Every structure is written in C-alpha cells, then in structure tokens.
C-alpha cells in the first residue's frame, strides 16, 4: 500500500508541475519522471514486460521525440515557452478538470469493489508471446501496418518541401 502511495506521488506531482510550468523543456523533462512512475506502477502490479515497454517507448523514445520537437520549434536560444492565452481560458480548463475529477472520485469512492487480495498470477513473457501469436495475430499484424504507415506519414508531414526554397527549410 505504501508502495502504491509513493508511486502515486512520483507520478502525479511531476505531471501536475509539468502542466503548470511555462518552460516546455522543463515540462518535457518532468513528464519523463512521471512516465517512469507509471512504469513503476506496472512493475508493482506484476506486469513486468509492460514496465519495460513503458520505459523503452515513453521514457526512451517519446521523450526524445518531444524534446526534439521543442528544440526545433524555438524562435531563439532563450525562448522558453508559450505564454498562456488568457486567464479565463486557464480558469475554465481548471474548472472543467476539477469537475471531472470530482465526478470520477465520487463514482470510484461510492462503488463497492472486490478486495482482490490474492497475489497476481504471473503472466510470463513466454505466455504473452504465445497469446500474441495465437489469439491476437491479426491485431499484431494490424499494429505493425499502423506503425509503418504512421511513421511514414510523420516523415512526409515533417519533411521540408523542396519547392518552397531553402530559407523555409530550417
């Protein structure tokens, strides 16, 4: 139980601070910590393979892509981030988020849930592989095609247009 509380602290506090900071680079670096906390949650829940994939995909890959995007879209060296639009918009977002939080907390706390004290059955990597290749083969193939198409599309979108001149391709 204390482990879960520590994991919640490590996950929630950096995420909240990252969403409040003005500097986008600091936000991205704090979110890496938050994603690592989520990986710790997977580890705590007994899904070790997922914890490793979370570390590989989020902490390793997506954070690097985000940092590259932040660095590529800066005007100057000292340009830290984007100023918030209006106070009203921030307050409205805060209000809506708080309302959703209240509704969700109320719903969760008023629902009787099973104790579930039995230890988690170990789902081995071998078992996962057999599941993937036997029952979910189609889904695996579709995800492969989706990743290929999405990454090709990302390259096409982000590639600079050669017709628009060299001054536009920075």
């Amino acid at each position: 139980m204390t482990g879960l509380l520590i994991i919640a602290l490590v996950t929630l506090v950096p995420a909240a601070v990252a969403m409040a900071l003005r500097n986008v680079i600091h936000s991205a670096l704090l979110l890496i910590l938050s994603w690592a906390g989520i990986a710790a949650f997977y580890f705590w829940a007994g899904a070790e393979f997922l914890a490793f994939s979370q570390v590989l995909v989020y902490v390793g890959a997506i954070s690097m892509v985000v940092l590259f995007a932040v660095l590529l879209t800066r005007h100057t060296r000292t340009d830290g981030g984007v100023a918030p639009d209006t106070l009203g918009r921030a307050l409205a977002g805060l209000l809506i988020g708080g309302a959703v939080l209240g509704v969700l907390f109320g719903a969760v706390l008023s629902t009787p849930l099973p104790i579930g004290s039995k230890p988690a059955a170990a789902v081995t990597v071998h078992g996962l592989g057999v599941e993937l290749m036997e029952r979910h083969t189609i889904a695996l193939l579709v995800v492969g095609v989706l990743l290929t198409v999405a990454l090709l599309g990302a390259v096409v979108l982000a590639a600079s247009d050669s017709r628009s001149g060299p001054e536009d391709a920075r």
Partner: protein
Amino acid sequence: MILTPLHLCLLLSSALFCIGLIGALSRSSSILVLLGVELMLNAANLNFIAFWRYGPNPAAGTGVLFVLFSIAVAAAEAAVGLALVIAIYRHQRSIRLQDARRLKG
C-alpha cells in the same frame, strides 16, 4: 467504507487523467496539449492494468495485451502529432494553437 487497493489505483488514474485534461484544455502550446493527451492515454492504461490485476481472472493476460497495443498506438500518435506540430510551425512560425487557424498551407 474501506479503501481497497483497486480503489487507490482507480483514484490514481483518475487524478492523472484530470491533470492531463487540465493541461490539454488550458495550455496554448500545442506540444503541451499533445503531452496532456498522452497523460490521459496513460491514465486509461493504468485502469486496464488495475482491473486486470484485481479482476476475476488475472491469469489471462488480456489486460496486459490491451495495454501493449495501446502503447504501440500511442507511440504512432505521438510521432504523427509532433510531425504535425513541426509542419504547423513551418507554416505559421509559431506553435500557439490560437495562431493555427488556417488549414490552407
């Protein structure tokens, strides 16, 4: 009223979802909005794992497989989203969402 571990997991994931929601709604930097959406996706994954762990049949790896596919789709979404941010920046010289009102390139 006793708080089971499943309750705590669900509270954690709903708090994370709301942090992502607030970020996606109130920030005007498009990269931060994308990161807020990523946080909401992660909160949904936490729910899958919580219900798999404390559900009636944790021996079947269905929850783990669902999150695995979800992580793969999230990676594709992040790549495409950040490519869109870079493309918008090239056209508008800004990543503020309020400046990106034109679809014509």
